[in-house]
């Protein structure tokens, strides 16, 4: 009985299928005629890619038409290759290679033979195209840049690669996709959705109208326009100041976390990566392994933060209640510790100093004392380091910030495990003094410029920050991403910020940035000078210090927070401080009153300094 049922199921299925075939093939005659005129050509309707504006509504990126020569390998008929090659100005070998590649991709699906012709080339070719069966021309749009700056932010578009085509069925060979920056991050918003049209043809390959009255057609959905938080004037000014230097500037609006400027130097003009020039230019940029123009130093440059980090240690000291604002700490050209009288050097200044002048004068001994007290407050240095680390991390250091640009680095804030490992705990013990260089932002702490700018914004806000972001509006609608609209709170209580901010203010009124005041603007800042090393022929060699500066202004109700990092710029106020001060003036006043300072920066180059380590000769640093 059971056996019988299985026979029954199988035979019934067979009969049902045969009946269905009978219905489809014999009974219903409409299919035969349908197939007669069922040659369908699929045409994709590419939507306009969204435009990109800056925060003031200035158009930065728009589109220009371009034309691709496409091929459907299966429809190819023998043709005059010589003429074809001469019209398109390519070699026969290249054409053969492209056609072979197209056939491997698919004999039926169109592939690009020659991408991105200009309007003129297209006009000439269009007339002759009908001679070549199997080829046709597809219109697409390329990017057109109305700005020469911000290439690192905007990114670029290019043909989608094969790996991605396999992963995401939306993309077809030859489609354009955002590859870097905003173009990549907001690809889905910018690209829109392409439409599909099916044109029915008869047996003689003549169009006879839309297939099934357009039942299966879809309309293209245009890409959305993006408004960035970027201030293109400030961005351009920053790029101008950074010429002949290497490093990054990150400018944030503390009250919102909006990125006002994100400068990396050296950089390139975005129009270099458009259309057919993209490939050779891109190769050139990639092969510049010394200047690394494609490397966004504002986001990816990892440097020791140097003295600006002292402000964080001051705040933690107050929060952990290990120091009083008024307590003076003496400094004898440095901080002495350990059995053998080891020393963390300092420069000459009056002594003892309390917190506010301590910050203004950037006294190493002061912060070494505070840091040591923080760590030693706890039973074990492990516990101390981890508590300290928690505070530091609440400023967005030591991990990806979560901003909306597709590149970045974590930076580093060391854990107790890290020290356990390098000091081989528990075989050997280690103490707060072994990690003392953290006190002045010089040891294991590493941060990217955008992390420093964000940290500055958190100080300016007195204890919270918004995750930095570049997107302001999508199609005119403000962003609703909670990550960018809810504040992240630090572990430091609000009242502890005032003395630190006062200290940063005095950096300008009487401290290390005395010469960089801007009339009418109350700036708070902190200079930094970060030692750094490289390997030359496998030998660890010290290079000229990095010049670091963080600042925000005005002191009350801050409008701008900035971090500047100049590689090998020597001391904080020498390059970074000057650039920061000009950027602040530019943003708040709109004009520059100190033209001398501006001129000094525009005429001073660090190229010579950078050349030193590649010269192969011995060189001196910090000159």
């Amino acid at each position, binding site marked *: 009985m*059971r056996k019988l049922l299985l026979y029954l199921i199988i035979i019934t299925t067979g009969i049902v299928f045969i009946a269905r075939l009978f219905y489809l093939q014999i009974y219903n005659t409409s299919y035969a005629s349908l*197939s007669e005129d069922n040659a*369908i050509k699929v045409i994709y309707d590419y939507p306009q890619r969204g435009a990109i504006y800056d925060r003031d509504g200035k158009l930065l990126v728009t589109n220009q038409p371009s034309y691709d020569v496409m091929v459907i390998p299966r429809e190819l008929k023998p043709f005059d290759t010589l003429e074809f090659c001469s019209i398109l100005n390519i070699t026969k070998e290249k054409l053969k290679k492209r056609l072979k590649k197209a056939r491997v991709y698919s004999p039926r699906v169109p592939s690009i033979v020659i991408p991105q012709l200009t309007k003129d080339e297209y006009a000439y070719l269009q007339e002759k195209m009908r001679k070549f069966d199997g080829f046709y021309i597809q219109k697409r749009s390329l990017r057109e840049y109305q700005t020469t700056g911000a290439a690192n932010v905007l990114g670029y578009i290019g043909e989608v690669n094969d790996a991605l085509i396999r992963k995401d069925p939306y993309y077809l060979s030859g489609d354009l996709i955002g590859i870097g920056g905003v173009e990549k991050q907001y690809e889905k918003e910018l690209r829109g959705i392409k439409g599909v049209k099916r044109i029915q043809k008869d047996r003689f390959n003549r169009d006879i109208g839309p297939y099934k009255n357009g039942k299966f057609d879809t309309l293209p959905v245009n890409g959305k326009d993006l408004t960035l938080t970027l201030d293109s004037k400030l961005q351009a000014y920053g790029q101008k100041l950074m010429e002949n230097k290497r490093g990054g500037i990150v400018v944030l609006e503390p009250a919102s976390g909006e990125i006002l400027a994100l400068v990396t130097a050296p950089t390139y003009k975005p129009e270099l990566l458009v259309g057919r020039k993209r490939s050779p230019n891109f190769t050139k940029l990639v092969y510049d392994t010394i200047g690394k123009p494609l490397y966004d130093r504002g986001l990816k440059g990892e440097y020791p933060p140097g003295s600006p980090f002292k402000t964080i240690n001051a705040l933690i000291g107050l929060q952990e209640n290990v120091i009083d604002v008024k307590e003076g700490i003496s400094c004898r050209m440095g901080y002495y510790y350990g059995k053998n009288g080891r020393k963390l050097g300092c420069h000459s200044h009056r002594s003892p100093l309390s917190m506010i002048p301590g910050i203004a004068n950037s006294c190493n001994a002061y912060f070494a004392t505070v840091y040591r007290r923080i760590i030693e407050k706890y039973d074990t240095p492990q516990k101390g380091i981890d508590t300290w680390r928690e505070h530091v991390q609440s400023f967005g250091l030591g991990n990806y910030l979560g901003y909306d640009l597709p590149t970045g680095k974590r930076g580093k804030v060391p854990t107790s495990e890290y020290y356990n490992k390098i000091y081989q705990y528990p075989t050997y013990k280690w103490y707060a003094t072994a990690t003392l260089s953290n006190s002045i932002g010089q040891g294991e702490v590493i941060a990217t410029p955008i992390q420093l700018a964000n940290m500055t914004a958190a100080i300016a806000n007195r204890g919270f920050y918004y995750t930095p972001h570049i997107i302001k509006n999508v199609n005119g609608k403000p962003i609703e991403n909670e990550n960018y609209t809810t504040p992240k709170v630090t572990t430091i209580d609000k009242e502890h910020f005032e003395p630190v901010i006062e200290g940063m203010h005095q950096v300008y009124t009487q401290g290390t940035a005395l010469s960089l005041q801007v009339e009418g603007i109350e700036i708070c800042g902190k200079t930094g000078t970060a030692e750094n090393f490289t390997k030359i022929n496998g030998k660890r060699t010290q290079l000229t210090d990095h010049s670091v500066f963080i600042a925000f202004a005005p002191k009350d109700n801050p409008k701008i927070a900035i971090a500047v990092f100049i590689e090998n710029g020597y001391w904080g106020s020498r390059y970074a401080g000057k650039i920061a001060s000009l950027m602040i003036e530019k943003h708040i006043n709109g004009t520059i009153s100190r033209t001398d300072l501006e001129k000094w920066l525009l005429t001073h180059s660090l190229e010579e300094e950078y050349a030193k380590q590649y010269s192969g000769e011995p060189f001196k640093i910090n000159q």
Partner: protein
Amino acid sequence: MAKSSIAAIDWITVLLFIALVGFGWGNIYSSSYDNEAFSLTDFSHAYVRQAYWILFSIVLIIITQAVEVKFYERFAGLIYVISLLSLLGLFVFGKTISGATSWYQLGPASIQPSEFAKACTALALAKFLSDMQTNINLLGHQVRAFLIIAIPAIIIIPQPDPGSALVYAAFFFPLYREGLAAIYLIVGAAAAILFVLTLLYSPVFVVIGALLFLIGFLISKSIYTHRERKSKIHLTTGLSISILIVLYFILNIESIVTKLGILSHIINLTIISLLIIAIGFFIGLLSKKKSSERQKIRYSRFILVFIVITGFCFSVNYIFNNVFEQRHRDRFNIVLGKEVDSKGIGYNTNQSEIAIGSGGWTGKGWKEGTQTKGGFVPEQSTDYIFSTVGEEWGFLGATLIIILFVLLLIRLIHLAERQKSQFSRVYGYSVIGILFIHFAINIGMVTGLMPTIGIPLPFFSYGGSGLWGFTILLFIFIKLDSNRVNEW
């Protein structure tokens, strides 16, 4: 000394296999050649690759025949574990092709382990069921058999390849043959039907349909107690079902639908409701359990069944809409043919139907299919290969293929029944189940009878892994069968 020779091989099965593979390759050739000269060295053509894969499958056949029969039985567990590991490995080393991470990249070729896992699972199930201590009527053993079947399916689903996972339903064949109570089949089939219907339509409709069905069932049960009228009732319900079906088809002829307008929908709904009640009624009549004293219990049981169905439908709906993410939903929608993509709803099936329909009695001739040539049917050399048969060989050719498959399956049942060892028989029925499910789903999909579920047509579709998987599956059974004279 075991007497296993070439002569003991069942050549009828082998010939059917050769016919299917050969005819399949001819159709792959037709759907993938282009105007260039025939060449067996240009690997960019699908037909060239398939030719080499067929050649290699001969090697596989020789290996399966060379191996001692005892090997399959003894190492079934190990083979099963290895195949599970190969499936799990995909999550780490897998390569994604058109959205599914189901392949290993080995040099230039891609291997799809799920195609081989079927044969491995069949061996493991055969080994378990043929164990002296296994009693399929014990709940614990049922659960274990079920786990052997379900584990590979569960690993395959999130790749995502729900089509391949669905194939594991095939193992109900051997389970049923070995004496699993029929209620499992009924519940399983009902759950599958409800699942698909719920996703295709709204759960409310499905629940109403189920209610109507149950009412019909109940009424019939009540009436059944008056036995003397039973044959008349049988006849009347049977007749009314036929009349309703005929009515339904007449009403849905295009000219009538357009004439009636919205009224046709109302009439349709009424007819379908009546039909559901009548079918429920009829099944109720056929079912043999009857006892008027237990009517009360029966009512409460039916209410319970109804509650279970309602809960099932709504939870399927809820999980689908609220727990799944959009990408999961998209995948199921693709499987169910609900996908809204750039190609438009139902485009594939529509094109496939046109291709088949345009074939007529004898087809357009080999390599002459205009639909096939034009590339209108997507995935034509793989899942939709049958549409090429329909177009180029017509009704006669397509019917021949269906007959060949039915003959193969019937032959295999015959072989399975003559096995003396339970291991061989269970394995044989697993092979039958797997081949049948592939055959039914694939041709059902291509002819537009079923939603789009992408699984290949055995021996026919383009693809090395698929071909090898089916070849190994079948030829292990042929080997087992050729050895039956030695089994006591």
